[in-house]
């Protein structure tokens, strides 16, 4: 699985998790033992067994992160949680509340961040495509005037510009999708994209390109066919 931050994530038992988090390595244990043994308060010649008791106390771990409780059949999880919460130092969450915390807070926050980036990228892409298509259209003003002069309808000219814009978007989408697929493994984090996301992305690109071509189409439709004649 992937966490909301894009990191790899696995589920393991609590005991293993605590061991991974709190188990000290051999060097640390040896150093601590040596320091404790060097302390005359713990290593009294007249009190045998004190040093061993102190070292055993240091090595033991009493930390508890969370306890997963499975409620017996017939018991109401919410009622049980309410009872546990009466001890002020404990907090209890039901499965529904845990899912809410995970989905509505962690994943939703990350999704909003990615969504914001997507909106910014979409606006920037639309501006770039719009600028490119507009510049290309201005470079063909004379050709457009000729097309109008020889009888091309406005929708024919608009269709040509739209095709150009959609073609540009299609090329961009293919290059982008290919690059994302091929290069994703080389990045430490990745965003999971399913086939449906790709399809939605494709339609979003086409929509952006359609909107981006509007300015160029407006400019083309304002061209006077008379400019095709004369110098």
């Amino acid at each position, binding site marked *: 699985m992937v966490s909301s931050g894009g990191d790899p994530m696995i589920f393991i038992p609590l005991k293993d998790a605590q061991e991974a988090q709190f188990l000290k390595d051999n060097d640390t244990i040896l150093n601590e033992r040596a320091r404790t043994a060097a302390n005359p308060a713990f290593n009294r010649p007249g009190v045998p067994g004190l040093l061993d008791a102190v070292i055993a106390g240091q090595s033991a771990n009493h930390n508890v992160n969370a306890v997963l409780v499975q409620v017996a059949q017939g018991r109401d999880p919410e009622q049980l949680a309410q009872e546990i919460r009466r001890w002020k130092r404990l907090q209890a969450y039901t499965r529904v509340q845990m899912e809410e915390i995970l989905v509505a807070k962690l994943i939703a926050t990350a999704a909003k961040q990615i969504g914001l980036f997507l909106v910014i990228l979409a606006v920037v892409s639309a501006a770039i495509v719009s600028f490119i298509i507009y510049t290309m259209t201005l470079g063909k003003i004379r*050709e457009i005037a000729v097309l109008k002069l*020889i*009888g*091309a309808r406005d929708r024919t000219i608009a269709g040509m510009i739209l095709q150009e814009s959609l073609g540009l978007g299609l090329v961009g989408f293919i290059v982008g999708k290919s690059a994302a697929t091929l290069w994703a493994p080389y990045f430490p984090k990745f965003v999971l994209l399913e086939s449906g996301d790709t399809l939605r992305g494709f339609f979003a690109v086409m929509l952006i390109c359609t909107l981006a071509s509007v300015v160029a189409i407006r400019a083309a439709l304002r061209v006077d066919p008379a400019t*095709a004649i004369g110098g």
Partner: protein
Amino acid sequence: MATGLSLKQAHPQAILIEGLSKRYGSGDTAVDALKNVDMHVAPGEVVGLIGPSGSGKSTLLKCLGAVIEPTAGRMSIGGEAIFDSGKGGWKHDDLRALRRDRIGFIFQAPYLIPFLDATDNVALLPMLAGKSNRQARQRALELLQALDLAHRASARVSQLSGGEQQRISIARALANQPPVILADEPTAPLDGERALNVMRILRQMAQQYQTAIIVVTHDEKIIPTFRRIYHIRDGQTYEERGQG
């Protein structure tokens, strides 16, 4: 003039212009670009229109090309009145369709559509006029054959030479079999031999398809090829017999 007109009425002209005037602006700043212009061109005839810059050539072409509205006068194309200032102006509601179906245009540069091949560039006009794809391509191939370009039918514009591109633009102008072609300095970018070749093709096409062609030009090389020339100066025309 009366005798001339009756003669023209007896033999229908492809282009007939009578008393055409065009005024830009109004009041003190008004400019008379055309003043009482008369002109007639028979089917199959190629005439030259010659004049210095600012003489009114482009304005005359724009009026005849149904792009700008004359201030006064009458114009007919292929025997059909298209403009009469005394009877409400334009006779057609859709000037775009009039240009598409009744007038061919040739320009100084070919202005072909770069992503289409030679056949599709020519077939574009019949398709715009509502012909089926098969009919339009058939007409295009027929014209390409007539212009010795059948072997370049599927070539892209970038693969064609300048002369070939200009011939494609001539084929495009003829695609809808218009009674009139307006050529705006079609030989300007060409050297002597190629310019004369284009004029030979225009003359041949005019004869073959009975199309009247008006060639606006400054090109000294091709002026001797015209049998009739209209000189235009300060918005007024006068006719001269050419050497062609």
